[in-house]
């Protein structure tokens, strides 16, 4: 936590550098679908950004481009100072370790338990075993899954799977957290707990990007809102709501 706090102090300066930059990014999938068109976006270090837009607007596509799960058809993407488009294969894992991602479809490893799924995010970076154990336990406690630690994903409720995905995204304390619809399977109470957790992490300096349909949360948080429509940004508002102000 100490490094996070340090980063926090430094980053709250007047001109924070942008940790995420998209310049005229377009994405056309191989089957011809144009998911993004000329999207430009800059997210400074420590920001909290909501990504909103109708179903199919392109929110998940942006996230896929950030993690280099997909390459853009045109345009430039920069994450933490690195040009994502020009990363060599061997550098991609290092990019991904800087991004804690909650996938919309969770992407849990089916042959690993809840505990093992979360621990995996620490093991890839070669943390010592006892640190893995300790931090994984803390992360599971935070999302309220300690009781389900030995369940396999197909033995979990939808919301429990989602919280496992959240725990895995946070356990490595990455400088940037990207959450794709992290409360879609959670009841309002649990949703708020998760949002508060994310909010606290953001206050400690983590940059947070969250794609969501949850109107209530967006409206209540009064954070920056980027709205997409048919693959283009139609609104980018500092302290916005879900609907156009």
């Amino acid at each position, binding site marked *: 936590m100490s490094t996070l706090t340090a980063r926090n102090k430094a980053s709250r300066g007047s001109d924070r550098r942008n940790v995420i930059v998209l310049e005229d990014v377009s994405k056309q999938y191989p089957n011809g679908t144009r998911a993004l068109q000329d999207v430009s976006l800059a997210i400074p270090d420590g920001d909290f950004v909501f990504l909103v837009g109708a179903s199919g607007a392109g929110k998940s596509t942006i996230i896929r481009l950030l993690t280099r799960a997909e390459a853009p058809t045109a345009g430039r993407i920069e994450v933490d100072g690195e040009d994502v488009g020009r990363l060599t294969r061997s550098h991609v*894992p*290092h990019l*991904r370790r800087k991004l804690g991602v909650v996938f919309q479809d969770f992407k849990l*490893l089916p042959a690993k338990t809840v505990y093992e799924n979360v621990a995996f995010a620490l093991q*890839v970076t070669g943390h*010592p075993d006892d640190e893995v154990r300790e931090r994984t336990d803390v992360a599971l406690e935070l999302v309220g899954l300690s009781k389900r630690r030995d369940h396999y994903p197909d033995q979990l409720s939808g919301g429990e799977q989602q919280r496992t995905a959240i725990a895995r995204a946070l356990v490595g304390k990455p400088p940037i957290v990207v959450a794709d619809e992290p409360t879609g399977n959670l009841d309002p109470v649990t949703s708020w707990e998760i949002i508060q957790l994310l909010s606290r992490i953001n206050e400690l300096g983590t940059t947070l990007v969250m794609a969501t349909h949850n109107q209530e949360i967006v409206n209540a948080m009064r954070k920056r809102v980027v709205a997409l429509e048919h693959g283009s940004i139609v609104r980018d508002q500092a302290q916005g709501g879900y609907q156009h102000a």
Partner: protein
Amino acid sequence: MLRYIRYIGAQAWQGFWRNPVMSIASTATVAGMLLLSSFFVIAQRGLDVSLNFLQSKVELYLELDDNAKPSDILALKTRIESDPSVDHVLYVSKDEALTRLKEVADKTGQVSLADVATNPLPASLEVKMRDAQQTKQLASMMRDEVGKGVVTDVVDNPSVVDKVLTITRVLSIGGISVLGLMLFVTLFVIVNTIRIAVHARRDEIEIMQLVGATDSFVRWPFIIEGVLVGIFGASIALLVLAASAPPVMGAISGFLTIVPIDFGPLFALALAGSVLGFALVIGAIGAVISVRSYLR
């Protein structure tokens, strides 16, 4: 580093046992193919031994003139022995020839030959071939000697020798090519099986990569899992072989009173070693090839 190795081992073990259907099916395929290959290697070896034995029966007799000088006979014997295709040459005197004939006659219950007055049998040189394929050539060379005072006749059986040799050659070439194809198909099928099993887990590979795992972090557990499949498969194959060896050998040994099939003392050990090594390497290679397609 040690932590990394321990991690890989644990992951591979987990991967094997948490996908039991696929692991067991792959292992069974490996075991089946290795069993077949081993069985075939043994059969091929048996064929080889039999054919060598058949070839070792190929002999050439030189009937000698009763009046030939012993020194000439010795010179001829030495000359023949120097031919690399010849194993050894045996001098059979007139007396020995008669004794042998008598023995055979006694055994087979034919009319007794004990009372033969003059010995009608010639002395002879028995040439045992090392390389039976050269018999014909040597025989024709010896025929040039006939009438020069030492050799009176060359006894081979050109058509029968030829036929035996041809069959021998065809069978052993056939055996080796089927064995070659066998090993190739074994390799191919095992790699293919591992590929299907890994393909079924391509989502896992993708997820691991998305969470920040490097290629080698993803690859190594799969490789070790492939090695495990190889080791388990080979062990099963060898156990089945070991269990079935005594009864099969017992059944065969009924026929083996005459043909001495002896694989040599180290054959079993060498076979077991190669099977295990082969399986282990193929398992690893199969995993490497299969995982590579999903690491992009």
